């Protein structure tokens, strides 16, 4: 059965998008990531205009993270105060990001820009995760505790002003780094259609020293609201959210995520991080390849989606 997507203005088989949602959902459930970093490139590869891919991906992220966020909240794994600070930054980042997308789309440079963003961020994050996980795996094999984190360790983050007490995280830190991290993640959500967990989680662990049990819950809490803001702003300013496409991805995604989560509980954290790093680097290389290799068609028709009501 074919479905016509009103905003992407294309028609494709229902199973194509359901299957894609399920595959990405499985991986996101497995690693506990939003999966936006896979959804957006996959949609672009399938011929969905880049801005529609980003806008629709943000809607899918809301669906894939909301149930996790609720579950984490019920288990008291969310530092609401920290989440709100991150969120405040996130809203500003999202607004700026959507404006940047608008400008770049008019200039005709959004496609290249998004590809460069993906190569850059996935490359950096993937490499860092790979190094970290390999070191942890080695250390664990050599014997001793897996976690190399010492509590009470101080860094430059602790020297900043506007200190706030975050009781759930047992932290007394400046509000500036969470605001900045939130803004950066919101910006990424708006321009790349990602939840930003791949930036948020490491930043919380390594920069803010948030206890691991609160990290995922708080990150999800922030993701739901930032992705929701990004969806509304994308729809409002760029008309780039396709509700039917989003719905198909959601249905596939939430189902796939359940199986992914079940499979993920059987793996150790550092092994998961190693696999995720490998996946992130593969996606990065695949997108980078298209930027470098000589294209068969030098010409392209401008993305008219949203431009002709």
């Amino acid at each position: 059965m074919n479905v016509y997507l009103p905003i992407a203005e294309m028609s494709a088989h229902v199973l194509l998008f359901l299957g894609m949602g399920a595959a990405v959902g499985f991986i996101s459930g497995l690693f506990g990531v939003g999966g936006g970093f896979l959804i957006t490139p996959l949609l672009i590869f399938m011929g969905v205009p880049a801005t529609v891919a980003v806008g629709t991906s943000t809607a899918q992220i809301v669906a894939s993270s909301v149930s996790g966020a609720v579950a984490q909240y019920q288990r008291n794994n969310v530092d609401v105060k920290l989440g709100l600070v991150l969120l405040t930054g996130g809203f500003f980042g999202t607004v700026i990001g959507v404006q940047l997308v608008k400008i770049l789309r008019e200039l005709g440079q959004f496609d290249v820009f998004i590809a460069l963003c993906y190569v850059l961020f996935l490359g950096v994050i993937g490499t860092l995760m790979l190094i970290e996980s390999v070191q942890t795996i080695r250390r664990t094999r050599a014997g001793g505790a897996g976690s190399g984190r010492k509590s009470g360790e101080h860094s430059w983050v602790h020297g900043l002003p506007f200190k706030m007490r975050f009781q759930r995280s047992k932290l007394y830190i400046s509000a500036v780094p969470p605001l900045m991290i939130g803004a950066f993640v919101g910006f990424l959500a708006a321009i790349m259609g990602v939840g930003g967990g791949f930036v948020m989680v490491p930043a919380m662990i390594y920069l803010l020293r948030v206890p691991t049990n609160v990290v995922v819950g708080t990150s999800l809490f922030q993701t739901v609201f930032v992705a929701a803001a990004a969806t509304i702003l994308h729809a409002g300013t760029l008309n780039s959210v396709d509700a039917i496409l989003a719905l198909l991805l959601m249905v596939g995604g939430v189902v796939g995520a359940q199986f992914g989560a079940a499979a993920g509980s059987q793996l150790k954290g550092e092994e998961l991080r190693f696999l995720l790093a490998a996946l992130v680097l593969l996606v990065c290389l695949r997108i980078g390849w298209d930027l470098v290799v000589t294209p068969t068609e030098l010409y392209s028709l401008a993305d008219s989606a949203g431009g002709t009501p």
Partner: protein
Amino acid sequence: MTGRVSVLLLVSGFILLAQFEALRSCAEILVPAAHAGQSEPKQGRKPDRLPRRDRQTDVIVYPPAPTLAIPPSLTPTEPGAAPLPAPERIEADISTRTIAVTSAYAGAEILVFGTIENSRQPSAESGYYDVVVVVEGQPERVMVRRKSRIGGLWINTQSFVFSAAPSYYATASTRPIDDFTDKVLRDEIRIGFDAIGLVGSAERGRQKPMTAEEVMAYRSAVVRLKQDARLYQSSDYGVIFTGRSLFRAKIDLPANVPVGPLTTRVYLFQDGSLLSSYQSRVVLEREGIERWLYMFAFDHSYLYGLFTVLLAVLAGLAASAIFQRRTV
């Protein structure tokens, strides 16, 4: 156990990566497959109402064909002249006048059929006449971009704007159009890809002054890219005579044809000269939930965004509720 799962995961990761390639071809396979099934009238679409055809005499207009010149000697009213055969006239109609674009829309196929009045053709196979059917969408602004290599990366650097290019353009003919028409005639009545009305724009943008060759390259890029998207089509043997005077042509409207009115023109040729022409319209309209969503998305865009978010929250919560009940 852990080792087995991790192998499984790496494999699934690679499968997903492979999808980057496979999905593209998959989309190409799946979409035409669905098109093949489109020849039957679709469920949910309004059935073609028969009375429409009865009213066709009121609807059909005979525009003055540009180069249609019937020699006075051929007019049968002339007194005293030998009973000369009456001039041929073409009459045609379209199977569907309104095509509903619903959420199950996967493109459509329209049938353009007609008859030649006073046909002198001995049989359907004789090839005495040539017929060309043109279906053309609304003119729209098109921007073409060209990539060049900058610092090892392929980046859009130049662009050219056509202020008017048909959103859709399909021809069907009894044989290749170039075989029986000359360029002057093709340009005049706008048949064939070389004669598509592409109007260069005065818009400057970031474009340098361009040579005629560069503009031609942009022009052919539009035709090529639109052809790849199946928005520009030509079917050299698409018009079939089914009798001495009856002909028919199938025109494929892929799902990506922008909604709006489509003009249908039918031309009758004999020995390269235009004898008669006919014109009509088909309208593609968004309908049902499709129309509602589209209007919603553009007229109340922020509210539509909020609606999508609520949809996402509901989908997410519903899924976890269902799965928790199953696992607990």
